[in-house]
């Protein structure tokens, strides 16, 4: 955690920023030619991917002292919500795309 103290003063920040910039461009490039039928599943899949925030929730939860009730309660809630986002997101996306699959099989 203390690494954050330096976060905005040292070169590592700029390396992270490089990652951010590259990711932004990549996100734009990857998506920019998606056919409109795939808009909803793609949105849903992206929705599942940002569920990666669950990792933060796990860390919060796992680092909470056993008498730190705030961290325990909120962390627990965060883990549940994050999992909902991830699992629900991927499952619902898969269901949407299953429809397309079926369609193709009978082509």
């Amino acid at each position, binding site marked *: 955690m203390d690494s954050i103290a330096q976060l905005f003063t040292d070169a590592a920040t700029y390396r992270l920023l490089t990652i951010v910039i590259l990711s932004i461009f990549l996100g734009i490039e990857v998506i920019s030619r998606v056919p409109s039928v795939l808009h*909803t599943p793609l949105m849903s899949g992206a929705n599942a991917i940002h569920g990666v925030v669950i990792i933060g929730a796990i860390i919060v939860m796992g*680092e909470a002292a056993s008498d730190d009730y*705030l961290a325990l309660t909120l962390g627990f809630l965060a883990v549940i919500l994050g999992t909902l986002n991830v699992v629900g997101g991927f499952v619902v996306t898969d269901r949407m795309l299953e429809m397309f699959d079926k369609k193709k099989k009978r082509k």
Partner: protein
Amino acid sequence: MLLPLIYLIGSITFILGLKMLSHPDSARKGNLVAAFGMTLAIVGTIFLYRDHSGNSLGNYPWIFAGLVIGSIVGTLAAKKVQMTAMPEMVSLFNGMGGACAMLISIVEYHHNPNPSMGMLVVIVLGMLIGTVSFSGSIIAWGKLNGRIKDRTIPAGQAINFLLFAGILTMAVLLVFSISSAPFLFYGILALAALYGILFVMPIGGADMPVVISLLNSFTGVAAAFGGFLYDNPVMLTGGILVGSAGTILTILMCKAMNRSLKNVLIGSFGGQKTGGSVGGSKEQGSYKEISLNDTAVLMAYASKVMIIPGYGLAVAQAQHACHELEKVLEDKGVEVSYGIHPVAGRMPGHMNVLLAEADVPYDKLKEMEEANDQMAQTTVVLIIGANDVVNPAAKEDPASPIYGMPILEVEKAEHVIVNKRSMKPGYAGIENDLFFKPKTSMLFGDAKKVLQDLVSELKQV
């Protein structure tokens, strides 16, 4: 150093997943690839994460309990949800992600009584964006499933501006440590929640998918702030990827409806509804009805029938009945095809997905341009629960809120039969001149019932 490698793999699966998701052939596999990477990252974090003193994580029972509860509820919800309710489900899940980011920020705020400025910025921004995404998504969810009605807020823009200014002021006070009172932090949280609500509230239901996509990219950015917080590359790449891809997707969705994002957010359909009905109050001609029997005869002796499905077909869950009709007609030697408008229904691809569910062969589905090309050779166009996507005002009336949207030009066909339950308008809330045209006949009733009756009539013709 196994964990960084796992995170690297996770980032790669996210990129590959998104890439594959944007091609029809690989989309489903792409989703699985991303899910695999996510699982890897989660399991890796649980077992391999070490804090700066080298301690591993604790509270395993809690973590696993949370994961199990979330997985079960998530899976059940995702499996049970109806096709038509999927966008609202996505919105709900998105809100959960936003809330998760918000909660993390709250805990970290309390764990760091004397944070550096950089850290404070990251915590506050993560909380702020997560909260807006959370409250906004919940409203979007409520509106889509009808629990919350469209509501224009008087002086909405002014209020939003005030909220924004308030949030900014408090954030500056907090970050520059001019005041470090926790009430500032929670004040920001409260205002952000309110902002999310007021931001989504006035937007028309028809534009909801666009808003959900936007909120989706918000949550992505909030997750990325988590990545900064924990110096975690997979959260960073995952979050930012979704943030930028989501933004582009939002713009693409707007384009598919031929609207600008600004137009969606500010001059929302909801607000223009009045404008629409004013336009509708001008004296319309009268419309004519057609009986089931006449419809059956007309169709049985047609050479070519085109079915145009819309939101009503989805509501009535009439896709199977529709496929039934198609088969009966084909048995009689009538050529049947479907004209699919890109924004028919409530989500892009809605009609494709729906008809695929009923096993309608893929090659019978014609995209808008192709359908319009075939219109002149079509004997009967049967419109089932569609309205806005065949509204000629989009081409003819520059004052109409949907002006400029490409439509299915059904008037080129010989006969137009419209099935809906009443003369009520569709999602854009505007009258449809088509219904009063001489070529058009109305066939009132619930789509499923009408189609089933039509099938039995046809069998007797």
